[in-house]
């Protein structure tokens, strides 16, 4: 309510009025928030693969390896971004059923969802999704397995760089490993509401 707006603003002004000096805005080099010894001299894609495994995710560097993994897990029915599918289809052999439109009335039917990442962060093993690159929010979230196709050129080294590269997308999501909880007795369980397997296919 606009009354509340005025009331809050005036209370804020009143609360701050007695301060003789205000705390200054600190200027700093974001280097302070970078894990330099983790990054030093590393190839970003290789490091990203290592870090995503450390947070419980997986990275594949060829479509064949991904397809083999899905087949071994018995994940044969899934969703794929329509833009990606023509390139990936030849790698998926018989036995797979892949839809390029996500039907939200059948969320439980999809064992995997393949979407495009907007980027990734090597330092933390994070996949970046956004509204422009990622065809469908639910497709990247509801299936047990989420595969994000990450282009090497879109890798950020560290958190400060990734923040600087947020761009103007209205919705950017960083996914660092599979969805998790430790709410029950502190025991780690993967796959709560989101994917139990978070996979990057680095191309």
């Amino acid at each position: 309510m606009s009354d509340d707006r005025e009331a809050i603003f005036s209370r804020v002004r009143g609360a701050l009025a007695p301060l003789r000096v205000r705390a200054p805005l600190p200027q700093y080099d974001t280097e302070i928030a970078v894990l330099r010894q983790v990054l030093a001299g590393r190839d970003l894609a290789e490091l990203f693969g290592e870090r995503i495994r450390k947070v419980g995710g997986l990275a594949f560097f060829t479509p064949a390896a991904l397809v083999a993994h899905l087949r071994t897990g018995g994940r044969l029915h899934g969703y794929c971004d329509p833009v990606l599918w023509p390139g990936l289809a030849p790698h998926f052999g018989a036995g797979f059923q892949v839809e390029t439109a996500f039907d939200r009335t059948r969320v439980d039917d999809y064992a995997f969802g393949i979407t495009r990442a907007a980027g990734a962060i090597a330092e933390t093993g994070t996949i970046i999704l956004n509204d422009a690159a990622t065809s469908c929010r639910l497709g990247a979230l509801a299936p047990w397995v989420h595969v994000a196709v990450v282009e090497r050129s879109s890798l950020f080294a560290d958190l400060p760089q990734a923040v600087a590269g947020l761009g103007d997308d209205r919705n950017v999501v960083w996914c660092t490993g599979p969805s998790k909880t430790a709410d029950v007795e502190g025991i780690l369980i993967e796959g709560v509401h989101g994917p139990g397997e978070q996979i990057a296919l680095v191309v």
Partner: protein
Amino acid sequence: MPSQPIDQFARELSPETRASVYQSTKTTHEKRTKLLFDQFADPNRLRTLAGEIKQHAIENLDTLLPQVEARLTGNGAKVHWASTAQGACEAVLRIMQARGATKLVKAKTMVSEEIELAHFLEGHGIEALETDLGEFIVQIDHDHPSHIVRPIIHKNRREIARSFEREGLGAYDDDPGTITRRARHYLRHKYLAADVGLTGANFVSAESGRIVLVTNEGNSRFCLAATKCHIALVGIEKIVPRDRDLAVLLNLLGRSGTAQELTVYTEFIGGPKSAAQPDGPEEMHVIFVDNGRTEVLASECREILRCIRCGACLNVCPVYRQASGHAYRSVYPGPVGAVLSPLLAGERFPQLADLPKASSLCGACNEVCPVNIPIPDLLLRLRQRAKEENVPSPGTPPMGAWALLASQPTAWRAALAGGRLMNHVPTKLIPVPALQAWAAQRELPAWRGGEFRKWLRQRRSR
């Protein structure tokens, strides 16, 4: 001497609860320390910097709030303001009613606990379902969270399995994996059927208007993928000046809260979904909530508004570990709660004025706090306020007579000599309640008042 309410609560706490609280807080604390100190050259510098960033923000809310409002509006969100808990609840209800909406799914937000939103909405015929696993269990049990990051730290798997069975979520099975899977299946259909997704905000950037949400389970992401309307409830202190500050704060939040380098889902929400995106809210509302915060801002305890709700101070706190969260009788337990809860209570301050006493002032909370809040100093300020307002305080010895004695050296020396009598009297008969209370649990050393002074005189005269 009567003991304080939190102490009595601790005495009555079941050993099982105490053990599980102790174990999980200790583990998280130790992992946190290792993670921060192994990885950063100077984690304390990082904490200080984060504190400076947040202190700047709260001391400049008069310019940052209008700035963030303009950004959000420019991004296509609608901004609301609520002075009180009631006002915030009503704002949510109005948005729901305007859409003809009856179902709301909510992610974990401490502000919604503070304003008791779910309860309010249910009273108005709206289904308001918690989706964070811990909060969901709290909701079906009609319980209260006992930790700001780990709401059911006080429950064990057997209690949870019984609740699930009672609610028809499957036959008794206390395997945490099964419990989690059952919640997954139950809740995903609830998201898809809901009209509105409600979240809090961990940070809001004044520079871009981006709301930052941090979760592990992916429930807030599901709220924002499945529903058509997003409501964010945001305490006015959540502002950070610039986007670049987020890198510093996010690095600290995951490590401090759950001993993770980064929490699983970090969402940057700049407005309603883009046109080409099939999923997500077309409408976004941000409700800025005061509910006592401007009073805290006006007080000498304003540093507590830096808090990023990581829970590290709870995890390290020896009193929290012994008493657990419900002992604090408020939404915010532990060291942060001992400061914040009595302050947010407004006129009900006296009812919670015992919270700041529940501390040995060991300072561990300040040492772990990612925004370096001087919690012990704030506890002391509140103790002084309670004393000034004459709030009775059980078990706190009166200090007037002592101060008189300690400012009169002749009387002091006489007391030193006289105290010797105590050595000849059973402790039970010592007419000083504090000493008796002490001796109820511990041996009192022999009184040797004045001996040192005598020794020194002899040494000097040799």
